[in-house]
């Protein structure tokens, strides 16, 4: 860009800003963006914006963040006039309220609302041994100390189960199965056209994807941290999509991907704004069914809902959404931490509405219960049809 020698460093700074906001803005994209600008009239703001968008963005979810970053960095609209002036000194943010929210979320500026259970009482280190571990496995999550949750984390990470596989449409060679005409013919050609040997193939197996929809409303508060640890442990080794809800649904899949648990949990609490709020399970599932189901329920996914069923919403809505969800999932599992308590009966309005539509109703109050769940997931059918 001979006429704009100062644009290149600004573009670099813009890429860093996008990177800080969580977009993938590496050197390849910066190069593309730079080259792209040589082909367009950068005085036209809309084209300038589109060119940078098409080079730096690669998923819909990032578009809003990009637009906010663009507004901030290249404002006011004419890039020629004040390109790259950073806001905040003399002007307020040139952002619409919606974009401002997106932007502060992307940078994690809003205050953390996830109250960590800071247990200050010092618990003597139990001698690590089978019996201590066994005790911990059966200890209710809501009665655990901070230190114990750390041990639970290790137990969960080492849990021996893997989710069951399903048959895919991709075939691979095998000893038995249907005849692989391609390889058989190929071999026959080598032997002057005689069918000397039959090759066979069968469907390749793949682990089923898991979709976790976890209630983090007020009544579930005691379990939230442990369940997030559980989600993080599964995300490390399975194909997992994770969502949390209390008054609304938030996808946390990408937040859980960080290797370090504490960092992952910190970004979850930063990214979720209604921890410990009220519960509207029906609304959350309606949101899931309309906006996420088609994206995450392919390939025979298993859906796990974790909630105590305390619902302030309309039970008939919950029923309708569960019916729909059940049809699009390979299997629908409801985990209820309260199911582990003595004398608990699933009589809350939400649970009564939900039960007929779930394939399984299991406890989730201690490590043992989560292990049972794991064993069940490991034993799922390979075939696709079930009901």
């Amino acid at each position: 860009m001979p006429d704009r020698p100062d644009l290149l460093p600004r573009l670099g700074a813009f890429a860093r800003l996008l990177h800080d906001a969580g977009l993938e803005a590496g050197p390849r994209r910066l190069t593309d963006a730079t080259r792209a600008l040589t082909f367009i009239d950068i005085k036209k703001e809309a084209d300038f914006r589109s060119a940078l968008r098409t080079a730096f963005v690669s998923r819909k979810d990032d578009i809003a963040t990009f637009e906010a970053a663009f507004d901030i960095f290249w404002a006011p609209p004419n890039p020629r006039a004040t390109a790259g002036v950073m806001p905040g000194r003399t002007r307020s943010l040139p952002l619409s309220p919606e974009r401002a929210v997106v932007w502060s979320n992307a940078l994690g500026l809003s205050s953390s609302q996830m109250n960590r259970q800071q247990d200050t009482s010092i618990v003597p280190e139990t001698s690590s041994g089978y019996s201590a571990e066994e005790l911990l496995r059966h200890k209710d999550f809501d009665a655990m100390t901070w230190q114990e949750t750390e041990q639970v984390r290790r137990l969960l990470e080492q849990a021996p189960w893997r989710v069951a596989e399903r048959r895919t449409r991709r075939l691979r060679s095998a000893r038995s199965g249907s005849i692989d005409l391609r390889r058989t013919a190929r071999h026959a050609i080598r032997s002057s056209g005689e069918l000397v040997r039959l090759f066979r193939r069968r469907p390749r197996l793949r682990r089923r994807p898991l979709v976790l929809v976890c209630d983090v409303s007020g009544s579930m508060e005691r379990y939230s941290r442990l369940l997030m640890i559980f989600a993080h442990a599964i995300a490390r080794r399975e194909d997992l999509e994770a969502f949390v809800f209390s008054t609304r649904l938030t996808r946390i899949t990408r937040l859980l991907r960080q290797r370090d648990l504490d960092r992952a949990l910190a970004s979850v609490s930063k990214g979720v704004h209604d921890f410990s709020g009220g519960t509207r399970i029906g609304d959350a599932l309606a949101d899931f069914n309309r906006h996420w189901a088609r994206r995450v329920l392919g390939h025979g996914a298993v859906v796990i809902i974790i909630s105590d069923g305390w619902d302030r919403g309309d039970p008939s809505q919950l029923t309708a959404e569960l019916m729909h969800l059940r049809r699009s999932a390979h299997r629908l599992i409801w985990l209820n931490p309260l199911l582990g308590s003595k004398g608990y009966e699933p009589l809350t309005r939400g649970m009564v509405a939900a039960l007929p539509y779930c394939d399984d109703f299991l406890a989730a109050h201690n490590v043992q219960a989560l292990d049972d769940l794991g064993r069940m997931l490991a034993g799922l059918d390979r075939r696709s049809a079930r009901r």
Partner: protein
Amino acid sequence: MTAPASIDEVERRLRERRYIGDRGLATSIFLALKLEKPLFIEGEAGVGKTEAAKVMAEVLGARLIRLQCYEGIDLAHAVYEWNYPRQLLHIRLLGEGEDRRTAEREIFSSEFLLRRPLLDAIDNDDPTPPVLLIDEIDRSDEEFEAFLLELLSDFQVSIPEIGTIKAKQTPFVVITSNRTREVHDALKRRCLYHWIDYPNLEKEVEIVRARAPEAAEGLAREVAALVQGLRSMELYKVPGVAETLDWARSLAALGATRIDAALVDATLGAALKYQEDLERIREQVPALVEKARGA
């Protein structure tokens, strides 16, 4: 036909072929052509992703090569396959005395090669580089994605018996996805990206007028307004532009020039594809129609 020289020209040429896109799409297309990079188009079902590629082929005066993806798609379906039956026949017809080596060389020549879309897109004698449409990539699996990644980086394919075939000219690649699965970042990184959103009312009326000219102007506007209203109603399956067009055509076929509650009720299936959605919206048809007629 020469390649478009500006964003304006892309926009104009798309419009001439009755594709009403937004300026952002025209910009992405123009840059993809200039930078010789694949264009990755995402959007909800029925917003015109595939159509964009088809129209681009017309705009460029190029051949459209389409690869429809599905789960388990492999190289034999996407790149090439030997014509085994013919090879077998050929080898069987050979006399006893003939040299096996020569025979093998013969049957592993391009004459016995079945060329699938990806090979065709790379190895052809087209006067203009073809448009390669890799449709609904989210339906394929990771293995295929990994292969595409390789193909799109250097536009070459190696066939062990023949050798490496390198593209003489880079095809214009358009990849579409409905987002039923997240496509890997590595693949997206090699592409320019564009998200096609639902059009606003004015654009949608324009699209109906261009694509379903049999619908009268008043009808086009009312149907577009009706669909815009439906899109804000939290449906399981939101109607796309394709549904708007179907609906406008259905109503036009019934001789309608305006909409009314009875007509809309009778043809609601053109827009809504889920029983739950149909049931819920049926109750609200009169109100929706009234609102759309006022738009």
